């Protein structure tokens, strides 16, 4: 109960401080419109923001100064703050680099880019490099069980708690290098997710535009089929189909992965279909489409040359989101054991395999961070892709000042 009272007390104090801020600001600046026209809720917001900032700085100070075991409480918090600052600095440097190197066009692009977008681009670039050159970068093979090395070495490389400098991110339960598996995981998980999303867009986009352009019974059939497919919860549906597919594939693991790509692509293409059709219907009524029809243009030209260029903005935005969803679906399926099959490294499987270490979080946070590495890799990519998509959407829809 007293916690609630404390929270209410702090909020009331913030409100009072907000009023004071506005009053003082108006007095000191001599009635500047910024303070004069500020509503109390906005002033309250400023004060709350400042209070939260102070709290974060204070907690971080504690995390740096306290010693074990108290510092364990702040371990993940400290990691988050440092990671955030590190990535912000990296994004800022990356943007600076983009502004000074390259053609005039790319320089202009980087000049107008928000920090979030440059962070996203930077992260995606790193992931792409890791995925492409996984074989060169990774110190060990993804399936390699290291001889003479203990299993379950905790990440961090700190010998005091059993870490090893040779394996900075530790080893998993059967003694494979986690760093190498993470790098190969980028290749498998991201690569397959990308291929699946492309396939989903090809199917959904083509059918959606076709339905929008032709209309009539074709539109009815396609739309109702999609309605039926969308009515089934997608993860359950995917699980069901994967079960059937694993029976078909038997022991052929490559074939199962291929089936998975098809299944997820088809399920996700229903969402793409809906979007493509909705966007297409609005474009089809434009006079320039009518002009093209009257010119005698064929269906292929209409769809790919007249409609598609005008639908890229929403489709691109959807691509980013859809990629994340597909990626998470694959990770979930792998986590449930029907996705990418071992011994191929996959982030979802890695989270599942190391999941029991989460219980160590309270007293041995370093050990507990082992399963979080793969989860963090998933989260980071998801955030990065969304940042980039937001930025592209902002640019292409012309939401400029």
């Amino acid at each position, binding site marked *: 109960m007293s916690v609630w009272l404390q929270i209410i007390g702090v909020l009331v104090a913030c409100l009072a401080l907000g009023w004071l801020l506005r009053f003082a600001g108006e007095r000191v600046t001599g009635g500047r*419109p910024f303070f*004069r*026209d500020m509503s109390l809720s906005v002033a309250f917001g400023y004060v709350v923001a400042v209070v939260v900032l102070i709290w974060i700085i204070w907690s971080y100070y504690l995390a740096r100064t306290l010693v074990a075991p108290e510092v364990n409480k702040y371990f993940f918090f400290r990691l988050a703050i440092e990671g955030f600052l590190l990535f912000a600095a990296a994004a800022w440097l990356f943007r600076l680099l983009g502004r000074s190197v390259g053609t005039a066009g790319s320089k202009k692009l980087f000049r107008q880019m928000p920090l979030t977008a440059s962070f996203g681009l930077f992260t995606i670039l790193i992931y792409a490099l890791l995925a492409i050159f996984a074989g060169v970068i990774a110190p060990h093979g993804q399936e390699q069980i290291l001889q003479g090395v203990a299993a379950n070495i905790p990440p961090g490389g700190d010998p005091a708690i059993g870490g090893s400098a040779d394996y900075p991110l530790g080893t998993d339960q059967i003694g494979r290098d986690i760093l190498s598996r993470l790098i190969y995981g980028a290749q498998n998980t991201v690569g397959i997710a990308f291929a699946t999303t492309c396939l989903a867009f090809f199917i959904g986009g083509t059918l959606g535009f076709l339905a929008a352009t032709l209309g009539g019974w074709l539109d009815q059939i396609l739309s109702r089929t999609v309605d039926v497919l969308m009515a089934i919860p997608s993860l359950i549906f995917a699980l069901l189909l994967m079960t059937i597919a694993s029976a078909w594939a038997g022991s052929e693991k490559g074939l199962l992965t291929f089936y998975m790509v098809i299944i997820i692509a088809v399920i996700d293409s229903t969402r793409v279909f809906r979007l493509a059709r909705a966007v297409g219907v609005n474009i089809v009524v*434009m*006079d*320039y489409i*009518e*002009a093209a*029809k*009257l*010119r*005698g*243009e064929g269906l292929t030209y209409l769809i790919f040359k*007249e409609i598609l*260029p*005008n639908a*890229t903005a929403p489709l691109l935005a959807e691509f980013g989101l859809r990629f994340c969803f597909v990626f998470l679906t694959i990770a979930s399926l792998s986590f449930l054991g029907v996705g990418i099959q071992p011994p191929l490294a996959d982030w979802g499987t890695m989270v599942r395999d190391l999941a029991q270490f989460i219980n160590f979080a309270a007293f041995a946070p370093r050990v507990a961070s082992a399963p979080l590495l793969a989860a963090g890799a998933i989260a980071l990519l998801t955030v990065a892709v969304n940042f980039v998509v937001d930025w592209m959407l902002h640019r292409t829809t012309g939401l400029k*000042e």
Partner: protein
Amino acid sequence: MSRLLTMKDVWIEGRSDETWNPIINGVDLHLDKGEVLGLIGESGAGKSTMGLAAMGFCRDGVRISKGSVDFDGINLLKASAARKRALLGKRIAYVAQSAAASFNPAHRIIDQHTEGPVQHGVMSKSESERDAMELYAKLRLPDPENIGFRYPHQVSGGQLQRAMTAMAMSCRPDLIIFDEPTTALDVTTQIEVLASIRDIVEQFGTAAIYITHDLAVVAQMADRIKVLLKGDEVETAETRQMLSHPKAEYTKSLWAVREFKRPQKPAVHTSATPVVSVQGITAAYGKINVLHDVSFDIHEGRTVAVVGESGSGKSTTARCITGLLPPRGGVIEFDGVALPLDYRKRNKHQLRQVQMIYQMADTALNPRKTIGEIIGRPVEFYMGLKGRDKRRRVEELLDEIELPADRYIDRLPSELSGGQKQRIGIARALAAEPKFIICDEVTSALDQLVAEGILKLLARLQDERNLSYMFITHDLATVRSIADEVVVMKDGEVVEQGPKTDMFRPPHHPYTDLLLSSVPEMNPDWLSTLLAERGIDNIGDAAVGKMNQE
């Protein structure tokens, strides 16, 4: 009269590409109580920006950098947000160009009407509703007691525009800013809205700033006219004086636009085969018949203007000729040969011969393609030219429409002005080298000066290439300047047709007469005279009286 609004040396800037560009350069404006000031100029002259600045407001990305706006002793640029909130809507009101876009479609008209008075504490909700009905009656809206309870989509555009004027009047403001309130309406509707606005402004002694690009309209409404050009004031004078003795060259050129007239071509020999012959066309959307037995001929090198108000079936006729809406019955002949009714059944040659220019160049040009691609496609598609030959042909076409090829060929439509876009539409039609072009309201979205340029271009191309035009329009000034023959349509039927000279000479069909007399003239007494002739001078008051009796 006492001074209501004084704007002194106002400078306004807009932000684009990270720099501030001037929009208004030091314009003065003043307004007395009960006075109506007309603000005219072509698009981009800064009329609307100036109108909004009179409320102490500017759009996002725009700022008032210098000057003062004084409304009845209150400095609007320095006033606090709370003070302005108390003023706007109550003492200063705004009527936007598109009422359809300005009303919230999810609420009843009267609920939106009463919001202002109730918020400002002028009237209670029920008082305000009663008042709204009276205002609706004064503005000659049909069924004033019930119309407010409809949703915006349930009334016509002209009615909605009047409902918006009523809304602006709801708090009996001292100043109303009208931003092109009739531009989107056709002539017969425009008259009603103009008359209503003028009556109500006179009755309540409201001062108004009337923004428009139509000189004839402003001549009816304003006591004084101010002409703007690219953010600079050109001249200001009393309406009558301005009309009879414009001083500045630019003003004179604006006045002269309506003078453009192409000589009428001699009547064609009756035995000549028409280029396009429409014979007894009947068409329907679903079960609703929209065209009944429409017939007319278009001869080589001639322009046939099809006139009528919105909903009269002009554009539907065009859709029938192009084959987009296959008619239920009738024949369409091209050079004496019947065309397949559905465009999908026509061959490339037949499609090429009939081209179309659209009203809204914005939607008629694919925004993602460059000018070179837009014009190049028909060149490639019909003529089979590729690579360098295609580019040379596109350059020739751009030359034809008087745009420098090297500067425009790689631009996107969004980088062109409205008039330039319309020229690209013309070039795209020309690229097919047709014999016949349908022009669907090609000038109605353009300023008069720009529209005149387009009309002259079309006339020149017709003379050079012996083209035939079907010219759909509701603007009789355009008809007067370009047509050889006129077809008047109403409710899907041809009411009257014949050579232009006959059409503009009495006796007329009553509907033609209504259309002709509805075209605003550059005479400040025109509206009053017309209303007196039609005997609808004080219908507004009569309606209120009738309502009160009931």
